[in-house]
C-alpha cells in the first residue's frame, strides 16, 4: 500500500516539476490517441449514420457483428496490423513498422467497432418525432439527418470519449507496432509496462495516475464544450 501513496506523491512531483521526459511521453500519448480518435470519428460517424438511416436486409446482423467486435483484443489487432506492415507483409514497402503511424493504424482499427456501434445506438435513441419535425419544418433529407445527429450529440460525444479512452489505455498494439522506442514511439502505457518490468513500481504507478488524469481532463473538457450547445 505504501507504493500507492509514494506513486501519488511522485506523480504530482513529475507533473509540477514538468519532468521533460514524462511531459514528452504524455504529449505523445495524447497526440497519437488524439489522431486515432479523429481519424476514426471521420470514418465512423458517417458510417454509423449510413447504417442507421438506411434499411437493408441483414442490418441487424451487421449491427450484431459490429457489437461483437467491441471486445476485439488489442494484441489481435496488433498482430493483424503487424502481418500487413511488417517487412514481408503486403504493405511492408511503406516502412511503417515501429513508427507512431503504425500505432495510430492499430488504435483506429481497435476503436472503429465501438465508435460505429455507439453512433448507431446514439442515433437510434433519438425520438422519431425529431425527424418528422425537421422534415415538416422544411428540412431536406440531409438537413434532417444533421438535426438527428445534433440531437444525439451527447451520446455521440460519449462514444468519442469512450473510444479515446480505449485508444489511450491500450498497450498491446502500441507495443507490437510501435516497439516502445524511447523518444519516438514510447507512450504512457508502454512506459508503464517497461517500468513495471524494471521493478520501478512507483514510477509505473505515477505514470498510470498521469494517464487517468489526462483521460479525466479530456472528458471534462468535452462535456464543458458540449454544455454550451
Amino acid at each position, binding site marked *: 500500500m505504501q507504493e500507492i501513496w509514494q506513486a501519488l506523491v511522485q506523480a504530482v512531483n513529475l507533473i509540477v516539476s514538468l519532468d521533460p521526459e514524462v511531459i514528452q511521453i504524455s504529449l505523445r500519448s495524447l497526440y497519437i490517441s488524439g489522431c486515432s480518435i479523429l481519424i476514426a470519428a471521420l470514418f465512423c460517424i458517417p458510417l454509423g449514420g449510413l447504417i442507421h438511416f438506411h434499411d437493408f436486409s441483414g442490418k441487424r446482423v451487421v449491427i450484431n457483428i459490429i457489437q461483437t467486435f467491441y471486445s476485439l483484443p488489442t494484441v489481435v489487432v496488433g498482430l493483424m496490423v503487424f502481418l500487413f506492415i511488417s517487412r514481408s507483409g503486403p504493405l511492408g514497402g511503406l516502412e511503417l513498422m515501429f513508427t507512431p503511424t503504425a500505432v495510430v493504424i492499430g488504435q483506429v482499427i481497435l476503436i472503429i467497432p465501438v465508435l460505429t456501434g455507439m453512433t448507431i445506438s446514439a442515433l437510434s435513441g433519438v425520438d422519431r418525432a425529431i425527424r*418528422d*419535425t425537421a422534415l415538416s*419544418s*422544411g428540412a*431536406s433529407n440531409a438537413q434532417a439527418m444533421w438535426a438527428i445527429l445534433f440531437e444525439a450529440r451527447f451520446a455521440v460525444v460519449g462514444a468519442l470519449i469512450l473510444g479515446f479512452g480505449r485508444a489511450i489505455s491500450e498497450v498491446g498494439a502500441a507495443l507490437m507496432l510501435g516497439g516502445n522506442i524511447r523518444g519516438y514511439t514510447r507512450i504512457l502505457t508502454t512506459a508503464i509496462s517497461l517500468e513495471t518490468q524494471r521493478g520501478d513500481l512507483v514510477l509505473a504507478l505515477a505514470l498510470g495516475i498521469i494517464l487517468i488524469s489526462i483521460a479525466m481532463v479530456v472528458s471534462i473538457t468535452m462535456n464543458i464544450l458540449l454544455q454550451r450547445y
Partner: protein
Amino acid sequence: MAILETMDLEQRAGAAVLLSKVSLSVEKGEIFVVIGPTGAGKTTLLRLINLLDRPTAGDIIFDGQKITDPSCDTVKARRRMAMVFQKPAVFNNTVYENVAYPLKVRGAHGKTEKSAVHQLLETIGLGGYARRKAKTLSGGEAQRVALARAVVVKPDLLLLDEPTANLDPVNVKMIEELVMRFNRERGLTVIMSTHDMQQAQRVANRIGVLMNGQLVQVGRPGDIFYSPDNARIAGFVGMRNMFRGYIVRNEAGIAVINIGGRDIQTVSDLPVESAVEIYIRPEDVVLAMTAASSSARNNLRCSITSLSSIGPLCTVTVDCGFPLEVLVTDKSVVEMGLSQGQELYASFKASAVRVLPSMPR
C-alpha cells in the same frame, strides 16, 4: 378556391386499410377540422398531406400542383406547409433556435427574420424565454413553441394533428385562440384534427368526420352536430337519445312514429311502415309540470328515474315509455324542485327530432 384537394386517397399497412377513398377539398383561408375517434386515420391523413408518408393510392393536389407525383420536389412542396404534432416535439436546444429552425434550413435567417422570431415569441406568451432550453418547458409551452415554429415561415397551409390532446384547459384555450388569430390575421388555411367535438365546434368553419379510415360526412359544424348522417356519427358527436321505431302515419310531412308504444310527432317525408332511427338532443327537451305550458307538438307524461349533475348542467333521465335524457340547468332543478320519482311532462318540437331511415344490420 380550393388550396388542397385529396382524391381517392388510400393508405394501407399490410392488410390493414388505414385510409380508404378519402376525397376532400379545403378552401383557402378556412379552418377545416377533421374529427373522428382514435384510430380513425386522422394522423395518417395529415402525414400524407405533409408528404411525410406516401399514399398507396390516390392523389393530393396542393395549390393546383399534384404533389404526390413522383417528379414533384417534395422539399419544395413541404416548405409551403407546416405541421404541429400531437406530442409536443422540441429540439434539444434553446427556444429561439427551435422557432428559428425552419428559417435556418431555408437559408433565410437575417435581421428581419430574427426580430420576427422574437415578436412571435411575444405573441405566444413566451417573450422572455428565447434563451431557455426548450426541453425544460411544460407540455403546453412546448406545444406553443411548436406552433410558433410552424407559422414562422408564413406557410400557405398549417396542419395540426390533435395539437391540444395532451394539454390542460388553459393551454388548450391559448392554442385555439392562437390558431384562430393566425387564421384571421394572416388568412392562414388550417387543417386540424381532433377527437374533441366541442373543440371542433369552437374553431371549425367546416368539419369532416373520419371513421374507420373513411370520410363519412363533411359539412358546417351545425350540419354535423344537429343532422348527423348515420347512427355511428350521431353516437360519436354525442347524440344520446337514439331510438328505433316505425312510421305509423304520415300527414303532409308530419310523420307519427311509434317508439316503445308511444307516438312521437316528427318532420319526415318517409313513407308509412318505414323502420327509422330517431335522435333527440337532450338540450332540445323541456321539462314542465303541465302539458299545456308548451307549444311543442310532443308532450309526453313521464317520471324522473335519475338526476346527475355535470358542472352547471344536470342530466335528468325520465321514463316516458322509453328512457329519455334531458339536459337542464342546475338552477332549474332547484327552482322546479325536481326529484327522483316525480311525475311531469317532457316536451319537444317535432322539428327537434332527427329522423333517419333505419340502416340494415
